[in-house]
């Protein structure tokens, strides 16, 4: 038993280190998608919720059901909204094509 949590502590420390390194490379431009993306990934508590909802114990099943619902909201909603945001981040040509009619007067100043 003692070994197990030392092992888990290793995993925790290394994962935190990797996370810190990877995330420090994310530009401020993408900080909101980063937040919603990690939120979707932390929906991994779905794994634990599934184990609770799928057990024999009744109270566990009920609490697990609510937990599965909440975690699924985060997983599905988190990935969906992150993708929606990332789709918007594009490099565009200098003069936006939209609303061209307002620009027909040319560049005289």
């Amino acid at each position, binding site marked *: 038993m003692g070994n197990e949590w030392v092992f888990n502590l290793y995993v925790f420390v290394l*994962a935190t280190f990797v*996370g810190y390194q990877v*995330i420090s490379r994310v530009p401020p431009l993408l900080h909101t998608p980063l937040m*919603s993306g990690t939120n979707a990934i932390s929906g*991994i508590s779905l794994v634990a919720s599934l184990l609770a909802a799928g057990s024999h114990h009744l109270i566990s099943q009920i609490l697990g059901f609510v937990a599965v619902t909440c975690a699924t909201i985060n997983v599905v909603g*988190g990935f*969906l909204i992150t993708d929606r945001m990332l789709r918007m981040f*594009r490099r565009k040509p200098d003069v*936006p094509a939209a609303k061209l009619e307002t620009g027909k007067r040319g560049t005289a100043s």
Partner: protein
Amino acid sequence: MNPHAPIQAVVPSPEAVATMSPTAIVLSLAYIVAAVLFILCLRGLSSPDGARRGLVLGEIGMLLAVVATLLHKDVVRYEWILAGLVLGSGIGVAISAWIPMTKMPERIAFSHAFGGLATALVGVAEYLREVDGLTYFKVGALGFETFLGFLTFTGSIMAYGKLQGVITGAPVTWKGQNFLNIGLFFGALMAIGLLVYDRSQQQVFFGIASTGLALGVMAVLPIGGADMPVVISLLNSYAGLAACATGFALNSQILIISGALDGSSGLLLSLLMSKAMNRSFANVLFGAFGTVSDPGQPAAGQAGKSYNEATVEDAAAVLMASQSVIFIPGYGMAVSQAQHAVRDLAASLERRGVDVKYAIHPVAGRMPGHMNVLLAEANVSYDKLFDLDNINDDFARTDAVIVVGANDVVNPAAKKDTSSPIYGMPVFNVEQSRSVIVLKRSMNPGFSGVENELFFQPNTMMVLGDAKKTLLSMISALKDGH
């Protein structure tokens, strides 16, 4: 096998691997692949071009982890699972597909609440199911999990309420508040210790849960709206730590890894946000911004000064004579949903040959990256969005700056007035540009209560009113000018 034995969610101890069934080995490998995919997903976010591809990897990882768990031998009934998955997916799609981008901080706070609640309930379920079979270590981990989960839950609900305006955005403070919060925190730690000592004490366990719920409310109450970016990042971190604690309790490495990724992301963002305000963590959490200074003082200071109130036409005339323009958006742009109007004004300036850039402060808005998302939504090319460090030297060479609903991030007091509560915060060198056009609802200093000298400088024009309306009239004034 003892039916009450704790669930070994993922990888059993190394010695036991030798005796694992082939399916169990495949499932363990699936979790390892999922963990790698999550890391690659986050790595994709290092540039906007590869980010969507990265996200797909994350989605595959999640699917893999969920399917592997459903095949786990301890999952014996599927009806509750199915119901939860269907209901959760429905709600998840509903709150993500149509929500406007201006509501993103609220949306993020809301989802942190769900994350916290899920981990907390798993903690309660595990505790109740296995009270007698728990090891000391697992009881401790469950205690932390439940405490952090409920803390994240109520804390995020409070943050949501403040952002939504249901609860006042101003800091709510009273005497002895910090003392009480610190007391609650150490009380919870002691209770976890007590529970490890005697795991059958259910009232102690529920005491820990209630303390988490109470502390979430108490800890967010004193924090003002302008500090929300730090709070949201911090709650992100707590949600991750709660998932980690679950991983320790269930001996599940995938939970530990994902939780650690989430936790370190939240921590890093909170540190960046605190740095961008030149304040320590402790100061954000316990400082209650703005209430420190006497609220009567700023108003008195302003009364004697005069400012240039300008019309839309005056501002348009300045813009017509400009060759380079920098926009500085702030929370006010989000409030009046002016991002599209900003883009339209920028587009009509660009058609006149004006060089247009956007200066984005790390703490502009209510969450990290808030302004970037709004401008991206309005179709602004991301190579025109500049960080503080990359644009601050350009102001001296700029003809006109348009401040759209930003305040503290353009306050020169942060650079020279040692008595100002925002002294030391890195701000834009706006005052160096030839002229400054400030779009603001009124001359009211807002709830941060900090006076902004920029508004009273001779080269500053104040155009008061709703930012969106003002921008739209500026666009037509530009058109009528020629």
